[in-house]
């Protein structure tokens, strides 16, 4: 399974996570939905959808936590009949990174994904560029940024 990254520092941690946790699809993105890296996706449109939906879920749960007076949730898991979804944030020097992982219940489990997510978080923190201000994305630039990311990921 091929992993590709818009930001190179994410690639090794992502590759290790995919191998260890047996995840089928993984997306690393900013809370705004900017894609940093992906593994397992074959179509740009799927990455776009997953990033938008993942960012929306993350925003919703963060807001629920805020209304409850809680810090943002550490992770969110949803299990279907054949697949499970795991969504969790990692704080890095580059800014917050949201990890969306989809795993097949036949090959992996929530326990494994959670276990190796901790390693992924450690690896991402260690690999993230230090002393770089997280770039703010303006709404006007978002579509172009997204298009650039997808071009970079799918080589178009």
């Amino acid at each position, binding site marked *: 399974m091929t992993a590709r990254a818009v930001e190179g520092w994410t690639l090794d941690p992502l590759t290790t996570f995919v191998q260890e946790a047996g995840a089928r699809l993984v997306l690393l993105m900013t809370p705004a939905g900017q894609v940093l890296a992906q593994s397992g996706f074959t179509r740009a449109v799927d990455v776009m959808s997953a990033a938008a939906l993942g960012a929306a879920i993350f925003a919703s749960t963060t807001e629920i936590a805020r209304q409850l007076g809680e810090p943002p949730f550490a992770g969110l898991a949803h*299990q279907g009949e054949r697949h499970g979804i795991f969504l969790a944030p990692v704080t890095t020097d580059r800014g917050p990174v949201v990890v969306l992982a989809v795993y097949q*219940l036949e090959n*992996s*489990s*929530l*326990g*494994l994904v*959670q*276990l190796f997510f901790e390693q992924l978080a450690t690896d991402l923190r260690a690999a993230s560029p230090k002393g770089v201000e997280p770039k703010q994305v303006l709404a006007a630039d978002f579509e172009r940024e997204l298009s650039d990311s997808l071009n970079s990921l799918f080589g178009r």
Partner: protein
Amino acid sequence: MSANGYESLLSRITSVRGVRGAMVVAGADGLVVAEQLMEGIKGAAVAALAASLATRLGRAMEAGGVGTGVFWHLQAERGALLVVPARSGMLVVAVAEPGVNAGLARLELLRAAESVA
């Protein structure tokens, strides 16, 4: 089963000399349901990896036509992992020292598996 029920069930296993910890693990998820572990044992990691191993061993046994697993004893250099799958899909897991009385530990694990089934 109540939290107290799990506690007394795990206490019987950990009272066997040489057992350093015991857990009930959800086999499908690899998540800890209940645990009694000595310090230094990473419960979440043992649970996730034991459940993954259980799934693969189960498939190997099925492919080999030998039926479902009843008791697994994985001996390592510095200890052992003892696992009994319950009918409910839970796993009863013990982490033990190399010199554990495996027979007695097995008996307690089987009793516990009957209770969680």
